[in-house]
């Protein structure tokens, strides 16, 4: 074992910032990360053993114990649950002999839950050994497992024609990409990258930043910070070394628009990174790709290679001796929080993905302490397009406070789930009509971290930064859906994904989840609703990062727009005790002890036997 691990370490030049890559390789080798491998890593990287575990135990996909030769990760989103998740899970457990969260006795199969894997338009879906299977049914699951039992690998089953794994045909075979409404900004295939980059490089970096500022482009990852401003801050920070990072850690449940961009417009995304590098003065870039999208890695590597061969990436781009820039792909390992830009930086450095204390901001001290701009995949693609069409063109799209357009990943109760490009200003009702929503009732805008709105009350609201902000996720629920159960699942999601570094998020979300459970169980009273509101507010306002700042939203926004659902569950307090307090259960211990004492007392006293 030692030899294999040593060769992995050597390949990464014992660079501890590449710890995630090394852990991945070890896990691919042994199907988990054995203790012995950690000992070797610790020795070679000058880290304590526990320090390595600190990182490895943070990420969902790393296993410290044998977890099965074939590991199934079934996406457990609310959308999957609307489409047969439960039956698929039962079929999986039955066919493999493994119960959820563990492996079967022979160690062949491991069945695990995982948060959204970016396939809400084709759920239920699961990852197996670096490939993905979608639109699962009981039959399909049984067939897959039978094939695995016959000795075929997951890769062979998913790719029977053995298409080259770097080809678009391979990617298209694994997942469907439904682009239902494209343009004017995204998925326009006419770009001449060579000409566009040449044109960008004739402008000095400040002029490029000015164009992005004038276009009024705001980050499309969700936070909506001005992209031009981010770049300007980064450019102004004096440093020889700077970095550009593409954030492809699309983890918000319900979104899959970055996946669509990476599949259909990868060069737009990479060109955006190259333009950013020119603007801020960076020579190195990283695309942080979520582990759930591992099946895109080779395809993306090939796209990068094509850019290098065309002289658009690498040393002396387009023959300019003053501009060299290259991009590498960093795989994540399963942590929603790494979508936060500073947590992503920590993860890129081979550590736990805990959000940093700000300031300093990444533009000042980012990756490896150097000025870094972190931009979402969609933002980068928008940059490419706006550089092509001009700032005025982009700024002219949308309306006063919200320029341009954004991609929305639509899922749930509608006829045509898929990707829709929405120009800011469109109303919710208009979009619902486009997607063929079927009796829409509640709409989860921006995933769990966003807001849940009632179509009745909010249908005429318009998408924009001053009204219905959207980070790219839109889930549609009709009246047959159990909204409180959905709220509970979202709270469970935040509890699972909280990094735990700050008190309100680590402790508070568990309390909120328990309250919701109490209300769903029909044991809540008005005081529980009041607590939800005030506790939610405390967590929202005191948490360290965006996760905690938004985690109470499923509760707070449904309390605002679907209050009657909660009211219908409440019961009145009787006397001074809360309805959730079970007097009998609380006194059970005493009662048992009392009975025991009575029994002992009633027995005839025994003589001590010598």
């Amino acid at each position, binding site marked *: 074992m030692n030899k294999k691990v040593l060769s992995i370490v050597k390949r990464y030049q014992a660079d501890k910032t590449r710890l995630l890559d090394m852990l991945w390789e070890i896990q691919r080798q042994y199907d988990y990360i054995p203790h012995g491998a950690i000992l070797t890593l610790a020795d070679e990287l000058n880290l304590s053993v526990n320090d390595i575990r600190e990182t490895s135990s943070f990420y969902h996909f790393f296993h410290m114990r044998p977890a099965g030769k074939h590991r199934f990760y079934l996406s457990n989103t609310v959308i999957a649950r609307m489409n047969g998740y439960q039956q698929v899970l039962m079929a999986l457990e039955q066919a493999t002999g493994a119960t959820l969260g563990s492996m079967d006795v022979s160690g062949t199969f491991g069945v695990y839950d995982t948060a959204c894997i970016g396939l809400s338009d084709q759920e239920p879906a699961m990852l197996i050994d670096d490939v993905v299977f979608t639109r699962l049914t009981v039959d399909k699951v049984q067939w897959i497992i039978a094939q695995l039992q016959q000795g075929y690998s997951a890769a062979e089953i998913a790719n029977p024609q053995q298409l080259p794994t770097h080809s678009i045909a391979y990617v298209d075979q694994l997942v469907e990409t439904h682009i239902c409404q494209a343009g004017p900004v995204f998925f326009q295939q006419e770009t001449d990258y060579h000409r566009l980059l040449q044109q960008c490089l004739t402008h000095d970096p400040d002029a490029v930043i000015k164009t992005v500022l004038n276009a009024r482009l705001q980050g499309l990852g969700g936070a909506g910070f001005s992209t031009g401003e981010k770049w300007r801050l980064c450019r102004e920070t004096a440093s020889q070394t700077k970095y550009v990072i593409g954030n492809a850690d699309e983890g918000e449940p319900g979104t899959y628009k970055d996946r669509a961009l990476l599949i259909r417009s990868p060069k737009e995304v990479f060109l955006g990174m190259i333009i950013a590098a020119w603007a801020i003065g960076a020579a190195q870039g990283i695309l942080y790709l979520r582990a759930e999208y591992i099946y895109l890695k080779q395809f993306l590597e090939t796209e990068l290679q094509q850019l290098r061969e065309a002289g658009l990436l690498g040393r002396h781009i387009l023959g300019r001796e003053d501009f060299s820039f290259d991009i590498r792909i960093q795989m994540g390992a399963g942590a929603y929080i790494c979508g936060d830009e500073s947590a992503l930086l920590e993860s890129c450095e081979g550590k736990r993905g805990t959000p940093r204390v700000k300031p300093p901001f990444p533009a000042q001290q980012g990756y490896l302490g150097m000025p870094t701009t972190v931009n979402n995949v969609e933002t980068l693609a928008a940059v490419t397009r706006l550089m092509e069409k001009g700032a005025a063109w982009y700024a002219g799209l949308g309306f006063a406070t919200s320029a341009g357009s954004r991609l929305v990943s639509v899922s749930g109760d509608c006829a045509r789930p898929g990707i829709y490009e929405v120009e800011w200003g469109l109303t919710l009702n208009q979009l619902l009509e486009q997607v063929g929503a079927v009796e829409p009732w509640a709409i989860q805008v921006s995933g769990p971290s966003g807001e849940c709105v009632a179509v009745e009350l909010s249908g005429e609201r318009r998408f924009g930064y001053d009204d219905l902000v959207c980070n790219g996720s839109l889930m549609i629920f009709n009246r047959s859906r159990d909204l409180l159960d959905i709220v509970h699942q979202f709270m469970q999601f935040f509890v699972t994904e909280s990094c735990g570094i700050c008190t309100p998020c680590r402790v*508070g979300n568990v309390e909120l989840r328990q309250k919701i459970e109490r209300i769903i169980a029909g044991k809540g009273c008005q005081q529980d609703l009041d607590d939800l509101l005030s506790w939610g507010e405390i967590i929202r306002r005191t948490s*360290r990062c965006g996760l905690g700042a938004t985690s109470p939203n499923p509760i707070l926004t449904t309390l605002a727009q679907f209050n009657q659902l909660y009211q219908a569950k409440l019961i009145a307090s009787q006397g001074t005790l809360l309805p959730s307090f079970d007097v009998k259960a609380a006194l059970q211990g005493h009662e048992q002890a009392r009975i025991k004492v009575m029994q002992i007392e009633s027995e005839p006293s025994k003589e001590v036997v010598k």
Partner: protein
Amino acid sequence: MSIQITLDGRPVSTQAGANLVDVAAEHGVYIPTLCYLKGKPCLGTCRICSVSVNGRIAAACTVSVSDGMIVAVDEPALADMRKALIEMLFIEGNHNCPSCEKSGRCDLQAVGYDVGMLVPRFPYRFTPHQREVGAERIWLERDRCIFCQRCVDYIHDQHSGQKIFTIKGRGSNARIEIDKTLADQMSAEQVREAAELCPVGCIIEKGVGFNRPIGERKFEIKSVRQRALEDDV
């Protein structure tokens, strides 16, 4: 550079870039803290120093003051927010002060008294935690860990620079770990430093328990508030 900020409605002159917790203390306004340690890199984990800065809630330990900043500390809603965070820590762990070696010199207990905490608004969890007693001179009482990360960030092996204390897992499953080999190589001073850095009774130095009688301990002689205001931490 000398600047002016507004602290609870009062104009206050101070130096730009100074830490808000220190600036407030210098001007007689106590902000409770647990993870913050003057002069050490800011951790920003416990959040019990949450105050209002220009109308937004921020952890004071993460704030460097700048000219014109408007800071509110002593407002009932803000005080309640801080109290709630302290209560969260009390219900998350198992904190039985009367039986704890750290009583009287425990920051968590001291700030609990300071904010007037009686019964937490959150239900006690009574989660069992396994204690770690394997190291020669240190024992970890995990019931009391508040994940401040002081030991994780400030205590390193003196030869290799490696971490001795680490966090395993994430979220509500996180737990503090100690590298026993490295711990056994710590100097006597470093062991003491680790135990004293710990704001609760989680890192305990073996063999010196109850070396100072109850009633004569740090916060029993002078309150945490008084100490902070007199810069006598």
